[in-house]
């Protein structure tokens, strides 16, 4: 990660001391986690691969009859254009608070026994997991519903951004509000 740029606007700007990379863009300041032991919610932002088994372990409970695990993985195309790489950036002061709020609300609303939300940052190779969500509940209905709801709220609200780098060299920042859960354009 670097603050250098080819953008000519930067050279025109007032000259100042180089600014060190802010902590939220420095992978060595991660993983960053927030846990609420009372509600058994666990939030993680990390630059290393996500571990679905660890997520399931955190929510396992003898009171649970249903455990739902969702892995969002990086896809190799966008509208038939081949994608070579995806990269994620987060603003943790807001993202951790937003994700904690989503998890805690889900526990209260659906009577869950635990929620894990983990998001990977930096470059994520095609086919690897960028997000893990795990929820447990006494019965499957609440677990299925909560799992989908938590994911959709994350995609709507979490202060995390995805950049798709295409094989032809172009790169584009995505906005989740442009697409629904089927990948269709929202008008």
């Amino acid at each position: 990660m670097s603050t250098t740029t080819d953008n000519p606007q930067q050279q025109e700007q007032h000259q100042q001391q180089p600014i060190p990379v802010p902590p939220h863009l420095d992978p060595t300041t991660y993983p960053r986690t927030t846990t609420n032991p009372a509600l058994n919610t666990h939030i993680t932002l990390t630059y290393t691969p996500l571990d679905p088994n660890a997520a399931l372990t955190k929510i396992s409970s003898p009171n649970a009859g249903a455990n739902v695990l969702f892995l969002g993985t990086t896809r190799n195309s966008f509208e038939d254009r081949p994608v070579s790489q995806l990269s994620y950036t987060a603003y943790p002061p807001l993202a951790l608070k937003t994700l904690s709020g989503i998890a805690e609300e889900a526990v209260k609303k659906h009577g869950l026994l635990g929620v894990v939300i983990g998001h990977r940052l930096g470059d994520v190779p095609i086919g690897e997991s960028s997000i893990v969500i795990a929820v447990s509940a006494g019965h499957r209905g609440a677990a299925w519903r909560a799992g989908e709801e938590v994911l959709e709220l994350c995609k709507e609200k979490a202060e995390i951004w995805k950049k798709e780098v295409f094989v032809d060299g172009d790169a584009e920042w995505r906005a989740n509000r442009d697409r629904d859960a089927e990948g269709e354009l929202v008008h």
Partner: protein
Amino acid sequence: MPTFQIHYFASASTYTGKQTEHLAAPLPLSQLFDTLEALYPGIREKVLVSCGVSLGEEYVDVNGDDGSVVVIGPGDEVAIIPPVSSG
């Protein structure tokens, strides 16, 4: 010179060519977008209109009631928050 730090993400980072910088403080919140428009002509219409703004760890309403009373102080941390795309 007292300053505050402002972070740019996604489209805001692309437009400014920066991930972060320091700007002179104090600055009334209501003048933030004018200040950025002067530094990066066109950014208001192309980027800022679809962005949220945070001050500290809270969202603030640049154009609403907050804008007329809130002042960004020395050492404060501001972030420009474009439409998000996690997952």
